[in-house]
């Protein structure tokens, strides 16, 4: 933009001058990126420990009551990791994820990128479906090869969030209710 320096300064001469007037500095400058402390808390660690596992045989449907998800952190990452962990622990699935309505993954474990990539177009397509009176398109299930992906969606002022679970079978209506409840609990604090 400029042909010539605005200050008409000769860098070499200036460097020598600065060296002659600079005081000894008391300490080294603070590093640009200070250590930020602990890594994500237990929920995240748990979700990352295991590699993707092959689909397990469908567990017998237990009749026990699923404990409600209790969120104890106000940190979004921790909350989302806890949600994924809770889903894996208490629902018959081998993978789970949370995505926004553009298909951006917020947290995931045990699923392929392809599943998550599907979320964006899927939720976009459901926007039109939702416009049909009497159709609740905020939950559903889809066969993907040998796996079934079940999902629930909730909407907030900041847009939609989707909790998905991948397993051998589609989740029951009761299980989807539980997922929806857990997802609502989680995104309420985001």
């Amino acid at each position, binding site marked *: 933009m400029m042909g010539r320096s605005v200050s008409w300064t000769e860098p070499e001469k200036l460097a020598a001058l600065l060296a002659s007037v600079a005081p000894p500095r008391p300490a080294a400058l603070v590093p640009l*990126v200070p250590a*930020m*402390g602990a890594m*994500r808390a237990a929920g995240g660690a748990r979700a990352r420990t295991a590699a993707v596992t092959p689909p397990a045989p469908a567990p017998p449907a237990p009749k026990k009551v699923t404990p409600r998800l209790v969120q104890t952190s106000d940190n*979004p*990452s921790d909350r989302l990791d806890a949600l994924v962990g809770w889903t894996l622990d208490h629902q018959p699935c081998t993978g789970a994820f949370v*995505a*926004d309505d553009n298909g951006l993954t917020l*947290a995931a474990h045990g699923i392929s990128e392809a599943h998550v990539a599907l979320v964006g177009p899927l939720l976009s397509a459901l926007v039109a479906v939702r416009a049909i009176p009497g159709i609740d398109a905020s939950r559903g299930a889809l066969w993907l090869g040998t796996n079934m992906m079940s999902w629930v969606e909730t909407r907030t002022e900041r847009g939609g969030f989707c909790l998905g679970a991948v397993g051998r079978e589609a989740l029951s209506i009761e299980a989807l209710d539980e997922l929806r409840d857990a997802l609502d609990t989680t995104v309420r604090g*985001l």
Partner: protein
Amino acid sequence: MIDTKILDAAVSDLRNILRDGLVATDIWDRTAGLSLAGYNQQPVAVALFTRITQELESSLVDSSFPPLARYYLLDMEGNHTAVVVNHGTLLQGMLVDNKRANLGILIAVAIPRMLESVARAKLR
């Protein structure tokens, strides 16, 4: 008047969300370059992104494109993403470590929260 306490709290919230994925952030007045809140702030970045944003906005307008909305991202070498959030009279830059920060959380949670907080700070 802008409530800088709210901005400070918003930066603290952002650090809490992105943790060590957030390398630096700065919120500044785009006219004066006055930095109002931040973390690991770098004035050179303030000047640079003010200029880039101005160029971007004027180029979009000149090309009859829709104007810049909430933010833009620059994928930079070294696994870093620069995010510039448009708060109107204020701009915010974030330097994010891609390996440590979740892009989904950044876009779906952190940026919307920042936009709300800064809007609240400007209302005061």
